[in-house]
């Protein structure tokens, strides 16, 4: 699976925020064997070293980076932030967030489409953080996106895949578009479920950062992603509404008193 022509070493994308220390972050990235790490930009006073230290840490991890526009609420703000991110991080990949609703951090899909168009025309490779809405997805693709990142659930909620029907429909409608379930994944089983729906990757942050043992949880997510990916590739059986005996009934000892149902 390629994302804008780049083959990733892993389908697990990992966010870098909210870890208790840089060392815990580094251990988590290594345990996850993450294919991508996401990064951001924030204000920093002159002489403060946090940003530079973080940059050194990220470089030492030797994992492709995906800058984001987290916290942006408008098209112009998101576009300018993306341009600044490209200047600092040296990549034209951008995880585009245009937030339209504060309580659920729900994407402003109208602004998202517009910002995707502007950034694509400016040479960016846009990873839009969107909902599972089919019409929005179509507009994003028309605006130039070649990857979609539908949410599983609101950012940081850990609720898993809120709308299985919608995510399944989105996957089915655009079978050839690389898709990443981003946001809301709280447990490894949620990641497995995303792959079982046919999604190509997941992006996880809070579930690993806020686990009691981040490195252990990162390992669990790595294994969960591998399981989901392998399970999907193995072509799972279809669900049935009624039971079907797995043990053959032919040759049952009918004289032992059991009743035929």
């Amino acid at each position, binding site marked *: 699976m390629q994302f804008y022509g780049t083959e990733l070493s892993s389908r697990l994308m990992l*966010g*870098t*925020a*909210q*870890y208790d220390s840089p060392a815990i*972050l580094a251990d988590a990235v290594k345990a996850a064997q993450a294919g991508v790490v*996401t*990064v*951001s*930009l*924030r*204000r*920093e*006073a*002159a*002489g*403060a070293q*946090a*940003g*530079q230290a*973080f*940059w050194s840490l*990220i470089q030492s991890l030797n994992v492709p980076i995906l*800058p*984001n526009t*987290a916290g942006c609420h408008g098209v*112009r703000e998101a576009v*300018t*932030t993306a*341009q*600044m*991110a490209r*200047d*600092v*991080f040296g990549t034209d990949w951008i995880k585009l967030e245009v937030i339209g609703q504060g309580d659920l951090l729900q994407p402003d899909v109208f602004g998202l489409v517009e910002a995707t168009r502007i950034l694509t025309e400016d040479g960016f490779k846009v990873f839009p953080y969107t909902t599972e809405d089919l019409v929005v997805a179509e507009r994003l693709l028309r605006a130039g996106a070649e990857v979609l990142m539908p949410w599983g659930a609101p*950012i940081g909620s850990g609720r898993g895949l809120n709308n299985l029907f919608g995510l399944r429909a989105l996957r089915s409608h655009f079978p050839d578009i690389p898709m990443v379930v981003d946001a809301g994944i709280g447990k490894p089983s949620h990641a497995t479920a995303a792959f079982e729906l046919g999604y190509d990757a997941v*992006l996880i*942050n*809070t579930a690993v950062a806020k686990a009691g043992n981040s490195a252990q949880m990162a390992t669990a997510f790595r294994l969960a992603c591998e399981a989901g990916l392998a399970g999907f590739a193995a072509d799972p059986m279809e669900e049935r509404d009624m039971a079907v005996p797995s043990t053959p009934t032919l040759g049952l000892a009918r004289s032992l008193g059991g009743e035929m149902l």
Partner: protein
Amino acid sequence: MQITVNDELHEVHARTLGAVLDELGYGKARVATALNGFFIPATQRSAQTVEEGAVLEILAPMQGG
């Protein structure tokens, strides 16, 4: 002259963005800049003039999800 840097007022003497960054102590720090709401690439900072009352954003790499 007085300019606003990340929402704080600063008195600076420099007249170009590159020189302002040096004067403020950013030196060779890996930062991105926007002047009066417009992105200014690192390659253009030395030629970009800064006027009295300018609003400057200076952003650094940070953790993100």
